[in-house]
């Protein structure tokens, strides 16, 4: 029995080593293809240095799948590290990291936007690590008959001034708004960068919190309009261009398409060695060009523009 067990252990170990070696190679190859040689490949090699300890992360459910997948890989490479990723929402993540209940707080929005007024001091202690970018597109029911909407048209729709698709050149169909709850990070991003104004909830509008449900309702409800992260888009809904700009990854990266936000991983003060190693691993090309793009996010490292809390966009 014992010898059998040790055989299995040995097999598992070698396969893990082989797998991680493959991952490393893949990362280096893409790095070479991208033309970012030298510095970028260095962290991939140093990630072999053993760190140990446990990391607890909580917060944004939009970011959760990515953190979980990367944590899985990181734990394979570093046997001594134990990472637990919990959801709960951006507000929960920020609260818990500010009160030091977790090591990392995941958030869809800048901490300063959530921790306001009396909590503003708490936000100052937090250190921001931007790991990915999420772009959000306006989408409609396929039969609405509209390809593109201007900023003003979107504002008029979401404030209830325009209530029929024919007013924006579409079918004669009542507009049904599928919104997010007032506290949602996706809604905040959409309102800030697509509409430029906050909106009130309208009577008869529909609010759902899960992207999957939002997509299902928009696809099935005649005349529906809403907004979704790029990773959720498919043929069941019609993706609308914004002021004529297509919401594509290239347009987001070059800064042409403005409706996007960072995915943040906050630590309280500077992270310890284990957390730092994990966060550094996020910035490696292996993760940025692998897991991040694979799961439908846009690599933060690829962005040609950057944005601060106030929303000022600068070229990198």
């Amino acid at each position, binding site marked *: 029995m014992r010898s059998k067990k040790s055989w299995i252990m040995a097999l598992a170990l070698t396969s893990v080593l082989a797998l991680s070696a493959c991952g490393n190679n893949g990362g280096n190859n893409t790095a070479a293809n991208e033309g970012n040689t030298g510095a970028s490949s260095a962290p991939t090699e140093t990630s072999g240095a053993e760190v140990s300890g446990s990391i607890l992360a909580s917060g944004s459910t939009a970011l959760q799948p990515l953190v979980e997948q990367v944590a899985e890989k990181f734990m394979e490479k570093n046997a001594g590290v134990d990472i637990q990723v919990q959801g709960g*929402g951006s*507000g929960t993540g*920020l*609260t818990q990291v500010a009160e030091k209940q977790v090591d990392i707080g995941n958030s869809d929005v800048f901490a300063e936007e959530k921790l306001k007024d009396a909590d503003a001091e708490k936000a100052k202690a937090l250190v921001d690590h931007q790991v990915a970018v999420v772009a959000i597109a306006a989408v409609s029911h396929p039969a609405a008959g509209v390809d593109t909407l201007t900023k003003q048209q979107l504002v008029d729709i979401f404030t209830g001034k325009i209530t029929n698709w024919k007013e924006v050149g579409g079918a004669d169909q009542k507009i049904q708004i599928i919104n997010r709850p007032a*506290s949602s990070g996706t809604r905040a991003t959409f309102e800030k960068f697509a509409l430029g104004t906050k909106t009130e909830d309208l009577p008869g509008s529909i609010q759902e919190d899960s992207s999957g449900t939002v997509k299902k309702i928009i696809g099935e*409800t005649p005349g529906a309009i809403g907004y979704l992260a790029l990773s959720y888009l498919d043929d069941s809904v019609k993706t609308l261009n914004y002021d004529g700009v297509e919401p594509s990854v290239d347009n987001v990266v070059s800064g042409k398409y403005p409706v996007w936000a960072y995915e943040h991983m906050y630590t309280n003060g500077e992270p310890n060695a284990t957390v730092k190693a994990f966060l550094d691993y996020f910035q490696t090309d292996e993760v940025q060009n692998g897991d991040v793009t694979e799961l439908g996010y846009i690599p933060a490292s690829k962005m040609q523009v950057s944005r601060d809390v106030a929303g000022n966009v600068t070229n990198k």
Partner: protein
Amino acid sequence: MRVQNNETIRVQSSKSRVEKHHIEDLIGRSYMSLCVLLLIVSIVSMVYFVTSRGVSTFTIDKVGFSDFFFGTTWSPEGDHPSFGALPFIAGSFITTLLAALIASPLSICAALFMTEIVPGWGKKLLQPVIELLSGIPSVVYGFVGLSVIVPFLRNVFPGQGIGVAAGALVLSVMILPTITSVAVDALSALPRNLKESSFALGATRWQTIARVIIPTTLPAIMTGVVLGMARAFGEALAVQMVIGNAPFIPTSLFESASTLTSVITLGMGNTTMGSPHNNALWSMALVLMLMTFLFVFIVRMLEKRRSI
């Protein structure tokens, strides 16, 4: 000599047996006391936590009591935040009452069928089905509601299908097992001689059911209805998926509305602890908790009436 020996042995052994018994007794009692203590501490601390969070809307954020309970404008993230929770309180009551109205006749009929009309195969067939209903997770109810009930309502009635009617229909199926099982218990606990004397007087089966069985068991059946309503009032996920969650008092059955639970689940994770928005959600949780106490109180009253 011999007898004496035996006696001393008997005394000794009985002594040791008593001690073992005492120790087991002590362990059992202290374990139970510990569990009960833990239960009391956790319940008290939960009530304290919800209450202290819930009242901070009024004490710290200075939201007026009547603004909260009778205000109809809910705009917690706006430039001039306002926290009117009336639409959600109304939404919770409307859906709960509608669900009880739909489910009660169905449940009572099912219970009568199982106990009075076809106790044999009727019970064998219906009981497992109804038990199955109570075991289905609420997310499944929500998804079925979204995929079956909502499109059906959209095709048949005006509106988008999502709304109060969809929420009430989903809830009515969810509370069906609660009401039915309590009603079945009440009906099968009915003394046989009541029924037999009714039959002896020449009453038919329907007369017996309508004039004797239902009036006698009504308090117990009402207990089931109230328990079902308590479940409907507290149900969150399934309702949230199909009701639409617009913060307005609905003007029609097919219009989007919110319940207390749906607003709490939508907002709790996205708000930071201690912010006015978050506190307002805890105040709603407090309202929910107080309503649960009220439901328990009503059930107690009904039980008291039954025993008389």
